[in-house]
């Protein structure tokens, strides 16, 4: 038996013409820890989904390439087969039963049972559980990790770190686990918990288990892994031993995604001094995008980008300020404190918002374009209304609405049959233009735009970005763009703030070197607001 545990050879995968993996080759030795690094959308998850034989891969046309586990070619068509073959996976989201103890979770659906006569009549499932044995198995697994974890503790009462340990213990309790994939296991852990986890990983590796470690915390990847593979745009851009590379090299290998047809507007350094919006100690309970403690100043007239990896909290900032999720802290707009948790107030004060959830929050899908464009302005400013009886009766002013709609349709080049066409019939790009038109119709002083180019084609992307840019230049509207596409933001923004773990990791001028952004994205510590970065 050779020492090679896993070999993924020439893996290529496309989702509807869109190539997400190009000829990726990965090998993993027994007892080796491989760090897999890359931005969101670089192809890490797709690669892991292929390894696990997730149904989505086959529903979208399968993949090219070969997978060898211990020199044997594998054809997994369901995750259960991969599990049987000895591949364990620890997810970002905990897959634990909240009301069960650690021990019950560790042996979930693999419980030790005792025979009783009813088994003869009703089958195996009426065997009673052997609690002492279950506990000793769990204790054993926890011991292999070298952790202190009470097997009788209920999961819902555990600190997050312990939940993570429980999951790992479950994977290694399976007798044949040879390969363990850890998908961002430290993302929710405190520093000391993460350290314990890394120690546990090394212990497992020394017992001969191969580990693929996916993390956005570069520091940890460097510390814990033997070898590091960086993915970008579905290709391996760097593969080196951990002790032969450094943070900066990794960071620059992962950022800088190619975007076709985008012109960089550099060489134009604008200076701003007057803050229009000041955010202090903002927290937002947005599920999946938790904001913990954000301090930020937005200057009048600028375009500020907010970037960061998915789940770090960048989307929560705008949603919190607009009152869409429970939030707290202090937000000052044009010198007045802005009350939070009330969506009407920021709109009335002249703050507009284009939501990242276009079809859910952004549009009324069953209504026409015209109504969608004027809807918020009608609600907030009583615009496009005819009033009678001293304001008691308000009727829609359809003439005005149509006029305004036509104007925006022409201005933003919204492709449609007529102004009353239902927005659900429009393409993603044109829907996004309707969202922008609605925000513009409010004539905001400050405009938040979240993920403006998500899910729209390349041509529309450029148009949408141009519109945001022009709005800023022609009307002087201050714009805050939140996006996962760093390169797009670098094309239109003046400054870019990077959010990491619910806090601002640093703010840099858009013209800064891409590796600087990479470091911030990965949570390398920025020493101060000016963007001086300490590489440690």
């Amino acid at each position, binding site marked *: 038996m050779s020492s090679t545990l896993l070999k993924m050879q020439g893996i290529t995968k496309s989702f509807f013409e869109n190539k997400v993996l190009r000829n990726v080759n990965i090998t993993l030795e027994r007892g080796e820890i491989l760090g897999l690094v890359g931005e969101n959308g670089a192809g890490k998850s797709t690669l892991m989904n292929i390894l696990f034989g997730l149904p989505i891969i086959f529903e979208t046309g399968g993949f090219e390439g070969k997978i060898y586990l211990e020199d044997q070619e594998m054809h997994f068509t369901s995750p259960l087969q991969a599990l049987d073959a000895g591949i364990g996976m620890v997810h970002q989201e905990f897959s*634990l*039963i909240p009301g069960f103890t650690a021990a019950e979770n560790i042996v*979930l*659906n693999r419980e030790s049972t005792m025979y009783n006569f009813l088994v003869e009549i009703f089958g195996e499932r*009426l065997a009673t559980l052997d609690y002492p044995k279950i506990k000793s198995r769990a204790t054993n697994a926890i011991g292999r990790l070298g952790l202190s974890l009470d097997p009788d503790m209920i999961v819902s009462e555990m600190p997050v770190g312990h939940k993570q340990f429980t999951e790992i213990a479950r994977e290694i309790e399976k007798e044949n686990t040879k390969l363990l994939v850890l998908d961002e296991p430290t993302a929710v852990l405190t520093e000391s918990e993460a350290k314990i986890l890394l120690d546990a990983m090394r212990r497992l590796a020394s017992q001969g288990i191969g580990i693929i470690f996916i993390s956005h915390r570069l520091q940890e990847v460097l510390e814990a892994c033997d070898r590091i593979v960086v993915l970008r745009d579905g290709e391996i851009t760097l593969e080196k031993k951990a002790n032969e590379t450094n943070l900066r090299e990794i960071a620059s290998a992962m950022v800088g995604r190619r975007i076709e047809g985008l012109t960089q507007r550099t060489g134009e350094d604008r200076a701003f001094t007057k803050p229009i919006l000041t955010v202090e100690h903002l*927290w937002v309970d947005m599920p999946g995008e938790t904001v913990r403690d954000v301090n930020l100043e937005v200057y009048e007239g600028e375009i500020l980008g907010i970037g960061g990896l998915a789940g770090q909290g960048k989307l929560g900032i705008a949603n919190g300020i607009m009152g869409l999720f429970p939030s707290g802290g202090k937000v000052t707009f044009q010198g007045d404190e802005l009350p939070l948790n009330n969506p009407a107030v920021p709109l009335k004060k002249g703050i507009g918002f284009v939501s990242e959830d276009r079809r859910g929050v952004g549009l009324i899908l069953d209504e026409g374009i015209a109504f969608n464009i004027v809807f918020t302005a009608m609600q907030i400013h009583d615009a496009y209304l005819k009033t009678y009886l001293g304001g008691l009766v308000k009727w829609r002013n359809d003439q005005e609405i149509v006029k305004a709609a036509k104007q925006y349709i022409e201005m933003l080049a919204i492709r449609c049959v007529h102004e009353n066409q239902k927005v659900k019939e429009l393409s993603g790009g044109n829907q996004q233009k309707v969202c922008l038109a609605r925000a513009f119709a409010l004539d905001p002083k400050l405009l938040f735009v979240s993920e403006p180019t998500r899910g729209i084609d390349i041509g529309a992307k450029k148009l949408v970005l141009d519109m945001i840019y022009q709005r800023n230049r022609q009307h002087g509207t201050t714009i805050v763009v939140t996006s996962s596409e760093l390169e797009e933001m670098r094309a239109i923004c003046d400054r870019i703030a990077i959010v990491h773990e619910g806090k601002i990791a640093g703010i840099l001028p858009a013209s800064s070197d891409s590796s600087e952004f990479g470091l911030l994205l990965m949570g390398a510590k920025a020493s101060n607001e000016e963007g001086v970065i300490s590489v440690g």
Partner: protein
Amino acid sequence: MKKREAKFTIKRFLMTNIVPILFILLSAFAIPISQFSANYLIQEMLIRLARNSFLVLSLLIPIIAGMGLNFGMVLGAMAGQIGLILITDWKILGIPGMALAAIIATPLAIALGWMCGTILNRAKGREMVTSYILGFFVNGLYQLVVLYFFGYLIPIRSPELVLSRGYGIRNAVNLLGIRNCLDYFIPVTIHGVKVPLGTFIVIAIFSAFIVWFRRTKLGQDMRAVGQDMEVARSAGIAVERTRLISIVISTVLAAYGQIIFLQNIGTLNTYNSHEQAGMFAIAALLVGGASVAKATLPNVFVGVVLFHLMFVVSPMAGKYLIGQAQLGEYFRVFVSYGVVALALAIYEWRRAQERAYARRMFRGEA
């Protein structure tokens, strides 16, 4: 920090037990007014415990499996009633009669439970309202069978059971043959209070069954499915099948429960007896402090006692207080529906609170 925690638990205790606390307060107020003797009340409570507990017990297993309150238990009740009608016609008396009724009801209840479970697997997250409506639908089938097929397709020999037109069962079926046969199978009288020991033994056996069942692999799987279907599925547990089994068990138990219930009452209201079975059993369980997601054996017995104490006491309390017994009548129907509504609302509210709390914890506050 400590203090806040303590406050949190007291508040939590009050919130989780608001319904039973309310009932205890109401009873404490109404019992003296009603002027019932202690002996009378104890006798009544014993009878009602024997009569209703089994029906309420049948609700526990779907709750463990995360399917909420099984309003579909009326399906089982109907199966039980069909068994009772047949043994009455065949004039099989006493315990053998009850046993035969149960044997006839079992395959019917399994079939109905299978149907109910299959449908509920397609209505995940809306099990309660679906099973409630399903109860009405199957009630229609039941009426078709009992009103048209009995005496027509299914021979019924006893003329006192059949409507004068020659087919269909009469509105009331006298169950004299099995009346109290289980309750007083072992006659025990303490201080003039008759104890339905026979039924209590059956209930005790089934309580023990439920305790034991929770410790089986199947019980463990049900708990897992009940708490997180997706996690259970990814661990390889057959989620749909597990849910289906829980509903089948519940339906069969409800059939037995209805047989025991009617054995105690002594008459079968052919077209009505089952209708309220589900609602009253569910109300009793909720009064005992259970929620949509969690119910225990003490919830069952505390609930039956408190709920029926209110039933017995409120008409008399109403009579002495306002001079009208109807007020009490009105009150008890009002209360049972009100309790279900309140418990459902509190459950949703508490879940929202817990989610918000979980988010705060995740952010790192507290």
